[in-house]
């Protein structure tokens, strides 16, 4: 795949799938304020996805709705972290924390992309992501320093989630071209920044960040290999859309 398309699909699919997952917290949050917060962040992510699919459309790909609502799992390039079910709040919060730290740094870097339409989108998106990270940090610091119960849950969630989080940085064959052409700084550089960024926050809690070198990253997502959870998510997402493909809803 051409490096620009390769990069855009990964970015857009991550946003769509995690936005979809975060929206599942409606009515289920531990407090109403968190229902509302997760919904806000989900709406932002859907908005980001739409902007990125629109860039793809401008490059000749199908309409955003078609791309989002009619592909099957093997055609998706999201990392597996985004597609896991919401589980309990500890997992969803840790996923949000680990993912959005990477996302903020990613879009800050993309603001300087050599592909100007992407750089423009990134400059808007990074402003919103700042608040997502602020939200994640606040909760991780709070719950990661509170009761023994909360600290235990958060630590377990962190350890479960980290291998998937490392899958965020899985590269594709296009990686050398992406870096060479100045589209993006590359996944390795991003991961280094991310490790420093999450480490700084976790150091202010009772949580322990395991040595990441000892973990095996869960990859595959960037190459269309997904968990058993993605296809059912996509089927659900397209349930109405597919009822009448000729319809304007």
């Amino acid at each position, binding site marked *: 795949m051409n490096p620009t398309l390769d990069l855009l699909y990964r970015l857009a699919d991550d946003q769509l799938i995690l936005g979809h997952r975060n929206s599942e917290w409606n009515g289920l949050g531990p407090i109403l304020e968190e229902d509302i917060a997760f919904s806000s962040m989900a709406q932002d992510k859907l908005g980001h996805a739409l902007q990125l699919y629109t860039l793809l459309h401008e490059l000749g790909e199908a309409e955003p709705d078609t791309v989002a609502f009619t592909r099957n799992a093997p055609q998706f390039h999201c990392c597996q972290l985004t597609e896991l079910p919401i589980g309990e709040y500890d997992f969803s919060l840790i996923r949000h924390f680990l993912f959005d730290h990477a996302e903020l740094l990613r879009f800050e870097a993309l603001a300087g992309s050599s592909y100007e339409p992407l750089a423009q989108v990134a400059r808007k998106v990074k402003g919103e992501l700042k608040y997502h990270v602020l939200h994640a940090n606040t909760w991780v610091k709070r*719950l990661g320093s509170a009761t023994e119960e909360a600290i235990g849950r958060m630590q377990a969630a962190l350890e479960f989630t980290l291998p998937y989080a490392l899958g965020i940085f899985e590269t594709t064959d296009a990686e050398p071209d992406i870096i060479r052409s100045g589209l993006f700084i590359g996944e390795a550089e991003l991961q280094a920044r991310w490790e420093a960024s999450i480490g700084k926050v976790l150091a202010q809690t009772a949580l322990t960040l395991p040595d990441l070198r000892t973990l095996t990253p869960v990859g595959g997502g960037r190459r269309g290999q997904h968990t058993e959870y993605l296809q059912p998510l996509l089927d659900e997402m397209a349930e109405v859309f597919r009822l009448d493909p000729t319809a304007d809803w």
Partner: protein
Amino acid sequence: MYGSASTHDIPAKATTGLENEDPILLAEFEARIARGEKIEPTDWMPQLYRKQLTRMIEQHAHSEIIGSLPEGTWITRAPGFRRKMAQMAKVQDEVGHAQLLYSAAETLGKTREQMLSDLVNGKSKYSNVFNYPTPTWADSNVISWLIDAGAIVNQMANAKGSYGPYCRALDRICAEEAFHLKYGHDAVVHMATGTPVQRKMMQEALNRWWPAIMTFFGPSDKMSVHTEILMRWKVKMATNDACRQQFLDMYVPKIWEIGLTLPDANLRKNEDGVWEFTEPDWEDFKRVINGDGPCNAERIAVRRAAEENGAWVRRALLQPQARYVRPLA
């Protein structure tokens, strides 16, 4: 959404206790309300006023969070980016309304925790319409348009009531409900004027929802007793029948205009401007509001699961920074 789920069911001895109130304070209180002044949390108020308002605002708050569930299940299935994002925003607003209303109710002395616990224990009610299923996307659209429309009729009236915090919450809520109405109407119009599959789905959803919509404002005033004192105190601002008439007058023509029909052969506007309709099945309404509807158990179970799964978070918040294993700086 919603209001007036069951303000009609004030206890038969609604005036009980009034004779124990200080007559001078009571007369001043009633005079203030008659002058159009707002009652604020720290002002003197009769026990019955506090109790009825708490119940009414609490029920309204419950209706918002329970009401977010049937539409919420369609967020993940909404067709296309535009609808998906709007459905998310709409449902999020409803949860925000609950948050506002619980705060308003808390000013009367009952905590949010107590209210939510009464909800999952079946001690307090919420708008009965949410005990019915939403099997298709069109059902969700019917709620967005017509249930929210009903809610607006109710809330615009209640916003002129006497309790300051409730009125101010309602002013903010009504502004957002106006957007819900636009969104719901747009979605219904798209389907009602769309492909045959869409038109059929929408007509079926409307047929399914119409009986519940007709009960939305509560039983006929002929059947309600003791609304008089609540009207005098501006707790209840319009009768159930007046709200229903206003709703029919505003929305039936709009429904017919887009080519949809309503499953009531007796529905018509008389020459005197009054809408006639088949009397809803109030026995069924009573049965459902008392717990025996198609979705009561499911709605409460979802809410209960949310409360239970989130309990550890609330425990942690109540014990802020219980122990720092490491210093913060």
